[in-house]
């Protein structure tokens, strides 16, 4: 008799624990999805953006430019500013290099320094060469670049997605 009584109690203890576990899991698993949902959203490539007329961009010189992308983040539309440098190596409309100004180390903005003939990052003294290659400092990879196209009127249009450059 006492044996069966004990086992009834053990059953109650086990059942209580199990129910507690079920409730925790039924709430906990959705909550994980709830918290990480924004991280699972895919970034969408924006529409191409015109950055200027070819004739206004000097040849053989780094020409800084910037553009704004409006993104829908959650319920908010926010504009983010991006920038970079256009280098026309020659008059040919397809001989262009467009580098991002975002340092590949920790995303500070690099500037072209004429005397050093390099892009210098003001944060941790990174140094990138004219092709974006790493010359010195902590960055793990070269500066990113943008794909572009030039239309009949000579308008330079870029795809606002930063691409990794080959080392």
């Amino acid at each position: 008799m006492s044996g069966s009584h004990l086992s009834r109690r053990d059953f109650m203890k086990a059942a209580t624990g199990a129910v507690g576990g079920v409730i925790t899991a039924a709430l906990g698993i959705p909550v994980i999805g709830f918290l990480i949902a924004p991280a699972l959203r895919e970034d969408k490539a924006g529409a191409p953006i015109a950055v200027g007329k070819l004739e206004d961009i000097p040849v053989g010189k780094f020409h800084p430019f910037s553009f704004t992308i409006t993104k829908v983040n959650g319920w908010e539309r926010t504009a983010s500013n991006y920038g970079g440098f256009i280098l026309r190596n020659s008059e040919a409309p397809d001989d262009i290099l467009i580098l991002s100004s975002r340092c590949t180390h920790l995303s500070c903005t690099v500037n072209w320094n004429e005397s050093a003939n390099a892009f210098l990052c003001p944060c941790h003294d990174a140094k990138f060469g004219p092709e974006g290659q790493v010359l010195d400092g902590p960055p793990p990879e070269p500066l990113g670049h943008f794909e572009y196209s030039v239309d009949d009127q000579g308008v330079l249009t870029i795809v606002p997605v930063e691409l990794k450059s080959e080392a």
Partner: protein
Amino acid sequence: MWQKLYTWLDERLGLGDMYANLLDRPEPKGNWWNTLGSASLFLFILQGATGIFLTVYYTPSPDHAYDSITYIMNDVAFGWLIRGIHHWGASLMVLVVFIHMVRVFVTASYKYPRELTWLIGVGLLLLTLGMGFTGYLLPWHQMAYWATTVGTQIAGSVPFLGEFILKALRGGPDLSALTLQRFFSAHIWMLPALLAGLIGVHLYLIIRHGESHFPDEED
């Protein structure tokens, strides 16, 4: 190994004493009506958990409150579930706490030596209603906006002090961003802190005096 770990912890935390004093207590013969108090506690914890998660996305500002909740409901994974539980849980909690109060009233469990438990219980009931009132405004929809306008106006009808109370509740003469912000603050910090503290005292008193027994002809 486990035995050693348990002994080590027990020496420091007093797990055995805790078990003996908190869990392994004798109680009068139970009744399903006696579960309402713990059900209220369960709902409080559930509301706390879902509420904390909702603040990850919710923004207490007239410009964003409505949109952020629309976002939670439509674009966040399981947002509808977390908000749904919090929304319905609020109603259920008011209902369960109220029925718990009625049960204690009918069995006269508030009598000696449990007068203080009752007093704190009434405080908990009022705080629960306060949570419902402050939480109702947060989605910042038409219904909430106008109901809160009327609700705070009721406080404004107090003789002499009405105007002052009204402004203190709303953070100004009108329902505004300040109202939303202070209702939010009350809803997620002040009232829950008070609730949690009073629940602690309520539970201490229950353990101290034991659960009351169901009254019979003798009582």
